[in-house]
């Protein structure tokens, strides 16, 4: 007979216990493998969604600051070094609203993409692409579902008319936003495999997109652009097949990039051999001016501006007095032979003869000029400045029809006007335009009536978009050279063209999101622990039963190593069986959890439908890890048997109480004396530290709780051990200590205590709705509603101008405060997004309106004002977003690109305590506009005050064309809390399963103990104890396990919550805690009764006979 025969015989003999051990190990294996496969499934689903979203696109050029000509795509394709397989598609992207003609259907906040056939070539399946020769709309699957219209139904799409430059800027055109509308048929849905779900952002929200032919969009959208200019604009270039080209793509783009793409041109003036460098955006940026002047120092800068009136000082402000309304005035650099001579005094003005005659003034007279400058939120501030007439210029030359003055750039709403009545400059017309003004316009167009020094002009009208409207160049050669060198020097990034490594960003977004493997492992950790503990316990039972066998083998001459080999092989087979069963169960566990995630726990995955997709690597890894853990656990339990001599094993059988009175046990007991006070001292320190510093509540809960658990379990161990060693116990308690197996009791108490503690914690941290939602120092900041618009609004809604412009009800608005926010799009970093967000949306907030709102963990709103370094801006962030989504700390930095493609950083300076601000970063509006000067307007508004509901309805009605969407702050908070609460529900569900297992473990321990101690029961029965008496005795004996388990767990939970309760008692319910404790006690009590009935159904007196 070989040793394998003994192993096989042992396995067969102890098959029941081994099956029990395997079942418990299977449970642990199920949690481990199941959790890993859940993580696989979430990642796989996200990756499938990402693959659908990006198609074959690897890179995207985004012009955040305007438009380029769409033939840039062709130019890029023919760039030297670009591989042949690369494909490029130009796209116009805008935001808009879509509605049915009768207004019954309305969807706002949708993305509008102007595309041609090249777009679909970047899709996985271009055969699914729609026929773009038809003029109409196609929708993304989600929007198609939302609209629910049949093919052929007509829809009205509305987008904001693109502006040449920021509508915040002076002279940017009509104040009210203009819209471009299309009334076209709906032609169907774009299949996901044909890029139907294309989106730049990795978001959980499915793409809501309207696709339309590129040419149709271009033809209608760019009507305000110069009539001379081509309309083939685009603002996105999608590149496929660009793997490995990330570093060279921008260099290639620079080679094919032209000044026209940047909106710059060297314009031939009517003056002989004079040229002018101008921008489509009217104002030349400081960077362009600086670079150009470095290339050619002879360039002459000019700054032309529209002023409201020129007249004698006494005439300004007097409506009836004579003055010239609405004239161009140009600031030029004084120079020899120029309009203004060198040494020109800044307080002097040169006016043309037409103006001098009109105003009847002569040299030396005082003349005043009235003009608007733009303040914050496009507020128009009227100013007046006086000059001395220093020169009277001759009559200007007449301007041919269709042409413009050499001094005046093309102002939107002005330059194309046939007469003064058509002017649409964005400033209120308050002076009467006379017939001679019309005549001047007809003859001289925008020819300046006055000139002042450039320095003075810049002082008066300078703004963040630029201080120069043109750079004069002498001669064609210089103009050509300037153009050439500018193209070489200036980087496309300077003009807002950013290159996004789209594919990498998508991979990053799905690679590092919430790790569901880790999440479910931590949620199921207790079940795993319980499974392992129980398996060790049952295996230990089976070993104890075979003490005599082991002792016998040793006394027969087997070496300890050989005996260990037998035991280890048995453990290995049991572990293998458990692991294999666990792998099978993992499928049910994984599928079950995913089913819950797709249904009741949907909030945790933002309602994403996840398909079970386990990876073989994860199964192998999980199975290997659970096998190893199980084996270590079982081998650890066998060490106890190795402590005894063969004779002790033979004599004691399964029964060895001697160890309790052994010196080593007593030493352990004495050693444990100091552990307890140390744990209590550490605990008090921890509570004090948590109360005085800003330790997150969950961290303090777990640290404090585990200390209490530890100290409590040591206390319980000492209690049981002392009772057993105490030989002078009072008689009534004498029979309560017949069970000497302290380890088993502590295991039972421990499992129950840990389970109770975790469930208490999960319950206590469940987020409930705050009752004080109107308090400014709360999670709402006192705001009740959030309004988002698809198209930006430019004015301060609280201003008189805005009330006139949007026809707002003064009375309703008088009771509310509207805080507008500027928005730079980014990947949502709130807990609603499962993707990894590297650059969250960046909001510009008006600090003054935010003071004294929200509670801060660190800093406050004022901290956002302090900024010594223009490339390091202080930002506020929600605490949860910082900790969990971005995994950052106070003082950490996040990089962004400004509108000129320059990198800057925001530093996490102020941290807002759990609020609806989750998902983004907040910097001061002042800093925001410095970084994104060309992005005008506000698309998000936070409302507070009384009678808000009516006001919000009113605003939604007034802003209908802007595609408004409103949400109450309370519902936003509920959305966010739902995620957290769902995680807690999962935790509680798995924790509950763990507690059930713990209870099952206690049940097994009790039944096993009763079986092992049947001789004791028999003896007690023989000496006169009745069955009910014995039941009562066993009940009292084991109720202590439940009592101490529950008390230790509850105490650990309660003490762990002290810092949280001290800080905020809101949401903490002693009733729910008590009812939970009560429920758990009843469950445990019932289990105990069942166990006792099972373990001691009748007096086992017959066992005495077995002797």
């Amino acid at each position, binding site marked *: 007979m070989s040793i394998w025969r003994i192993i096989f015989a042992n396995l067969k003999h102890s098959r029941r216990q081994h099956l029990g051990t395997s079942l418990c190990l299977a449970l642990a294996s199920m949690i481990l493998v199941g959790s890993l496969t859940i993580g696989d499934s979430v990642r796989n689903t996200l990756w499938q969604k990402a693959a659908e979203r990006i198609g074959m696109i690897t890179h995207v050029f985004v012009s955040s600051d305007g438009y380029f000509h769409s033939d840039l795509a062709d130019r890029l394709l023919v760039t030297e070094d670009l591989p042949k397989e690369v494909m490029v598609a130009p796209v116009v992207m805008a935001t808009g609203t879509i509605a049915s003609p009768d207004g019954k259907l309305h969807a706002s906040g949708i993305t509008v993409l102007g595309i041609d056939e090249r777009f679909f070539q970047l899709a996985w399946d271009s055969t699914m692409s729609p026929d773009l020769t038809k003029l109409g709309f196609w929708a993304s699957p989600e929007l198609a579902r939302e609209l629910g219209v049949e093919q052929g139904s007509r829809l009205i799409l509305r987008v904001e008319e693109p502006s040449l430059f920021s509508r915040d800027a002076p002279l940017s055109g009509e104040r009210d936003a203009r819209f471009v509308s299309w009334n076209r048929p709906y032609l169907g849905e774009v299949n996901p495999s044909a890029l139907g779900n294309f989106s730049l952002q990795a978001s959980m929200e499915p793409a809501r997109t309207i696709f339309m032919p590129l040419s149709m969009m271009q033809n209608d959208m760019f009507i305000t652009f110069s009539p001379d200019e081509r309309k083939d604009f685009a603002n996105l270039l999608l590149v496929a097949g660009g793997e490995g080209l990330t570093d060279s793509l921008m260099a290639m783009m620079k080679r094919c990039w032209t000044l026209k793409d940047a909106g710059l041109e060297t314009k031939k003036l009517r003056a002989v051999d004079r040229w002018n460098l101008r921008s489509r955006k009217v104002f030349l940026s400081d960077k362009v001016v600086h670079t150009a002047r470095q290339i050619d120092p002879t360039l002459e800068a000019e700054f032309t501006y529209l002023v409201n009136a020129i007249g004698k000082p006494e005439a300004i402000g007097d409506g009836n007095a004579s003055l010239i309304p609405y004239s161009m005035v140009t600031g030029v650099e004084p120079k020899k032979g120029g309009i203004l001579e060198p040494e020109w005094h800044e307080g002097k003005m040169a006016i043309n003869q037409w103006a001098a005659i009109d105003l009847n003034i002569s040299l030396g007279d005082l003349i005043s000029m009235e003009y608007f400058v733009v303040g914050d939120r496009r507020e128009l501030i009227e100013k007046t400045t006086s000059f001395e007439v220093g020169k009277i210029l001759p009559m200007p030359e007449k301007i041919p029809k269709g042409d413009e003055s050499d001094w005046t750039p093309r102002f939107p709403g002005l330059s194309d006007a046939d007469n003064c009545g058509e002017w649409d400059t964005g400033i209120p017309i308050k002076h009467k335009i006379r017939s001679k003004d019309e005549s001047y316009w007809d003859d001289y167009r925008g020819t300046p009536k006055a000139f002042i020094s450039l320095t003075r002009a810049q002082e008066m009208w300078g703004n963040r978009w630029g201080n120069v409207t043109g750079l004069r160049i002498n001669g064609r050669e210089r103009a050509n050279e300037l153009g050439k060198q500018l193209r070489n020097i200036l980087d496309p990034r300077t003009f807002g063209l950013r290159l996004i490594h789209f594919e990498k960003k998508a991979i990053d977004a799905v690679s590092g999101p919430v790790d569901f493997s880790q999440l479910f492992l931590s949620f199921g950790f207790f079940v795993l622990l319980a499974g392992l503990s129980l398996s060790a316990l049952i295996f230990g039972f089976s070993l104890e039963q075979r003490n005599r066998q082991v002792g016998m083998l040793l006394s027969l001459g087997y070496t300890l190593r050989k005996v260990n080999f037998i035991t280890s092989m048995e453990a290995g087979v049991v572990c293998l069986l458990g692991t294999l069963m666990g792998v099978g169960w993992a499928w049910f566990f994984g599928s079950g959890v995913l089913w819950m995630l797709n249904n009741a726990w949907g909030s945790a995955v933002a309602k994403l439908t996840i398909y079970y997709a386990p990876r073989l690597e994860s199964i192998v890894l999980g199975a290997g890890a659970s096998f190893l853990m199980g084996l270590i656990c079982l081998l650890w339990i066998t060490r106890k048997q190795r402590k005894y001599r063969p004779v002790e094993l033979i004599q004691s059988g399964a*029964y060895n*109480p*001697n160890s*309790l*009175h052994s010196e080593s046990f007593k030493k352990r007991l004495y050693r444990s004396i100091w552990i307890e006070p140390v744990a209590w001292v550490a605990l008090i320190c921890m509570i004090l530290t948590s109360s005085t510093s800003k330790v997150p509540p969950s961290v303090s809960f777990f640290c404090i709780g585990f200390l209490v658990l530890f100290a409590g379990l040591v206390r319980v161990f000492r209690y049981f051990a002392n009772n*057993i060693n105490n*030989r002078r116990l*009072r*008689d*009534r308690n*004498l*029979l309560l*200590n*017949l*069970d*000497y197996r302290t380890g088993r009791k502590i295991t039972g108490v421990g499992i129950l205590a840990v389970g109770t503690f975790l469930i208490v914690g999960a319950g206590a941290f469940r987020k409930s709705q705050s009752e004080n939602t109107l308090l400014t120092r709360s999670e709402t900041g006192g705001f009740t509603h959030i309004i988002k618009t698809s198209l930006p609004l430019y004015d301060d809604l609280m201003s008189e101008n805005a009330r006139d412009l949007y026809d707002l009800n003064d009375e309703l608005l008088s009771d509310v405060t509207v805080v507008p926010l500027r928005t730079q799009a980014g990947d949502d970093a709130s807990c609603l997004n499962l993707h990894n967000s590297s650059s969250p949306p960046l909001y510009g907030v008006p600090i003054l309106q935010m003071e004294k709102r929200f509670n801060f963990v660190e800093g406050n709103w004022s901290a956002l004002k302090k900024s010594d370094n223009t490339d390091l801006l202080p930002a506020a962030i929600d605490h949860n977003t910082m900790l969990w989504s971005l995994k950052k700390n106070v003082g950490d930095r996040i990089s962004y690109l400004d509108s000129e493609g320059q990198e800057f950083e925001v530093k996490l300076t102020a941290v807002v305590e759990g609020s609806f601000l989750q998902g983004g970063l907040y910097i001061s509006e002042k800093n925001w506009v410095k970084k994104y000067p060309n992005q005008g307007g506000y698309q998000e508004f936070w409302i507070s005050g009384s009678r808000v509901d009516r006001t919000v309805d009113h605003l939604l009605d007034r802003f209908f064309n802007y595609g408004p969407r409103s949400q109450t702050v309370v519902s936003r908070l509920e959305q966010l809390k739902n995620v957290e609460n769902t995680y807690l529900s999962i935790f509680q569900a798995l924790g509950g399963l763990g507690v059930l297992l713990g209870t099952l473990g206690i049940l097994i321990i009790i039944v096993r103990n009763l079986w092992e101690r049947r*001789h*004791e029961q*028999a*003896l*007690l*029965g*023989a*000496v*006169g*104890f*009745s*069955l*009910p*008496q014995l039941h009562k005795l066993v009940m009292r004996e084991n109720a202590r396990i439940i009592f101490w388990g529950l008390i230790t767990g509850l105490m650990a939970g309660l003490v762990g919550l002290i810092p949280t309760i001290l800080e905020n008692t809101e949401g903490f319910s002693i009733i729910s805690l008590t009812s939970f404790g009560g429920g758990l006690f009843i469950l445990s009590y019932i289990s105990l009764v069942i166990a006792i009935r099972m373990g001691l159904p009748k007096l086992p*007196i*017959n066992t*005495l*006979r077995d*002797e």
Partner: protein
Amino acid sequence: MNSFIDVKNLTKVYSSTGEEFPSVVLNDLSLQVSKGRSVGLIGPSGSGKSTLLNIISGLDDPTSGEVWVDENQVHQLSPIEAASFRNQTIGFIFQAHHLLPALTAHQNVMVPALAGHGKMSADESRDRANQLLEQVGLSERANHMPSQLSGGERQRVAVARALINQPKVLLADEPTGALDKKNADSLMDMLIKLNEEFECTMLVVTHSQEQANRLDEVWSFQDGKLSAIIP
């Protein structure tokens, strides 16, 4: 003569699954024992000696027949009455001492007094346990655990335990079986002395004819029946 223990036509049959013929251990056995008498029961292994003691004490049920002890028909008692009967009327000494390993010798002796059927107070039972241990010569070992006692000492603790409630009947199932001759003689001396001192009726199962001969009566088991042997 009025019998204190009256066993009438007692039959005990053990039948186990798969066996064609059931095993008849006690066959229409009758036995009467007067109060205060000491009786030795001898016979070969498996002859039914222990079964008879178990049935008399109510630890086992007969297949047929009646057992009367102190005017109680033992197997007609309710479970509670049976428990009280075993506690107050019977003192049982097992061959294997069956001491509770977690309790000291003194605590083990006290165990029957804790069942709550008697009127003895806790202090009284404690004093009595001390007294009994002294009587069995173990007063010095009262606070020792069973594992710290020798086989003879353990058996003497078991005797003291059997006497704690001053039982009217002392049943001893091979009390000297696991002891050497010296210890066996010493224990039997003690049992006889206690029988005389407490006037309790005593039935002792033993393999040893020599030990049995020291008792008032000796009965021998043969084919499930008893036959008297005059010492």
